[in-house]
């Protein structure tokens, strides 16, 4: 992998790297704020953070083109959402219950999206987005719009145990769809460690069973993540079918903000897996000449300002009004029963 990193084109890749890191940093700043708001009792519902997974999340979404590609973020993809182009205000409005958010109070926190813009709104059932992304790609194929497009979604290690994962990846492989499926192996599914989740030596070994290409990457290594995601998305776009990317790291937070993650093995915390991809990223930016320390500090200040603005706006807005909601579960009003 080290040899490959040296190949990363510093001139064409420079903007890409800076963009990825900016999304990672923005997500971290935003999530720190969300954590504070949760502890202050300002959030409606739970808060689920992506700390530790910013590099893999942002690098995957940074390879997507909004308006052309499909993106299905999951629970720990704030960095990816930002990299894909989701506005911060969509996040703060949804977490704070503003009726002006994309879900209008009908769904919350990470269950938000703008499907008309190619970004799905996740349901809680793990793996469920895999065939849906594949179906969106299938429709693009039927419409003759698939050429060069790609669909991407990120799941966790726990999701690999679901039937949805198996059926979805197998079906996408049968149709040879340009799906990039990233498994963020953060070592725990809620509190369940890998050794109670699967028995294979390495999750990437599953790729061969599905007849898809597998990629492994250190999920704490920003530059490695960018490179692998560039390769995986390029291969998918080129018609090589689904790509399975397995990125390893440690979840640097609880499952949600209600959970202190005290069950996480101390040895894992102090291992290479426990590195913070943001800290690694800063080092890589500076050492690789992608950005200076001063620039990073400036970006952090900018992010804090933008987060503060997005929170302030959403906090002032009204929540949904049950007397004004249309309570329509059907687009065709004739189908809606009133009781």
């Amino acid at each position, binding site marked *: 992998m080290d040899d490959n990193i040296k190949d990363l084109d510093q001139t064409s890749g420079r903007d890409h790297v800076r963009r990825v890191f900016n999304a990672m940093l923005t997500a971290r700043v935003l999530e720190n704020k969300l954590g504070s708001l949760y502890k202050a009792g300002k959030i409606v519902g739970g808060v689920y953070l992506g700390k530790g997974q910013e590099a893999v999340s942002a690098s995957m979404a940074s390879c997507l083109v909004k308006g052309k590609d*499909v993106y299905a973020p999951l629970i720990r993809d704030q960095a990816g959402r930002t990299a894909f182009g989701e506005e911060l205000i969509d996040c703060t409005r949804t977490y704070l219950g503003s009726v002006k958010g*994309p*879900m209008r109070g*009908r*769904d919350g926190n990470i*269950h938000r*999206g*703008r*499907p*008309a813009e190619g970004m*799905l*709104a996740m*349901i*809680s*059932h793990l793996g*469920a987005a*895999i*065939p*849906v*992304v*594949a*179906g*969106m*790609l*299938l*429709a*693009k194929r*039927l*419409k003759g719009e698939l050429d060069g497009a790609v669909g991407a979604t990120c799941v966790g290690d726990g999701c690999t145990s679901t*039937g*949805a994962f198996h*059926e*979805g990846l*197998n*079906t996408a492989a*049968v*149709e040879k769809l340009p799906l990039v499926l990233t498994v963020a192996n953060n070592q725990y599914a809620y509190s369940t460690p890998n050794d109670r989740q699967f028995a294979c030596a390495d999750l990437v070994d599953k790729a061969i069973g599905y007849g898809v290409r597998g990629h492994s990457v250190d999920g704490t290594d920003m530059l490695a993540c960018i490179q692998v995601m560039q390769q995986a998305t390029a291969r998918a776009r080129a018609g090589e079918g689904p790509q399975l990317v397995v990125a390893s790291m440690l979840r640097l937070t609880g499952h949600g903000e209600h959970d202190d993650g005290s069950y996480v093995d101390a040895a894992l915390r102090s291992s290479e897996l426990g590195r913070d991809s943001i800290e690694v990223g800063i080092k890589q930016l500076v050492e690789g000449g992608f950005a200076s320390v001063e620039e990073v500090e400036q970006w952090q200040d900018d992010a804090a300002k933008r987060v503060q603005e997005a929170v302030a706006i959403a906090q002032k807005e009204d929540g949904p009004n049950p007397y004004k909601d249309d309570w*329509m*579960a*059907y*687009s*065709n009003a*004739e*189908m*809606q*029963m009133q009781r």
Partner: protein
Amino acid sequence: MSDVTYIDAIHAALDESMGQDPSVFLYGQDIGKFGGAFKATKGLQEKYPGRVLDAPISEDAMAGMAIGAAIEGARPVLEMQFADFSSVAFNQIVNQAATHYYRTGVPVPLTMRLPSGGTPGSGPFHSQSMESIYAHYPGLVVVTPATVSDAYSMLLDSIELNDPVIYCEHKFLYRWLKSKDLSGDRLPIGQARITRPGKHATVVTYSAMVHEAVRAAEMLQKDGGWEIEVVDLRSVKPLDTDTIIASVARTGRLLALGEAFPWGGVTAEVVSRVCADGFHLLDAPPVRLNAKDTPIPYHPKLWSSHRPTPESIAEELRKLLAY
């Protein structure tokens, strides 16, 4: 023109929808060259290349694929080989398809065909009626055509509708039910039909049980001159409460009849709505008749007693009329 069967009507509607709208495509197991387990898609892959796709045995992924395609603007018609197998796809249907419009404002125009209901010898896993399960979930439309013309027009309407439709087609009717052509009154989804007018009691039913109810009504006509009104719900969600209440207002007596299991479900919903909205119209306690509360048996002798029959329906009606 030779007679058209219920399955011919389904085939004709699929053909017509595909011919008219290039965004319609079919997805399901064995539906391509093979033409489907019941031949509903026979010849369509040749006629519409690239738009009739064989799926792996992955009902969950099939439903997910159809949902994704629908979100992206296509109009998938998903064939479950048997309604029973849609249980594997339950999560995608009730959590993804059903909630999507309410959550995001983006509709999911998919149609899922469920070959439903019992036939002799089909057993516990190829005989189920799933309409009540799906009707329970907001966001899903559930239709249950009982006639050849409804099988045709309601499938056309289902595919045109922008919301997810669970189209429950009864396997027992596939080849047994015939009509001289596909024409009919073309009532919209959500409107019930008075299949047989009457004045002494109302049978509210749907799908294949409409025909069993008519047979029972004929028996009672001969045996006592009773005039039994049969209401065909056509769609169980939405449910045409107005037509039901109007019928009960005429007859004062209600039998809610279905082929599904007895706990809850469409017949319970019908009785509950009549009791709530039309209690004053009733001259007798409303009655429900469903299948027995056991898995659906394999042997024809058991199966034919598991579901309501013209005889068991007539017996319930006699008790209702004697009250």
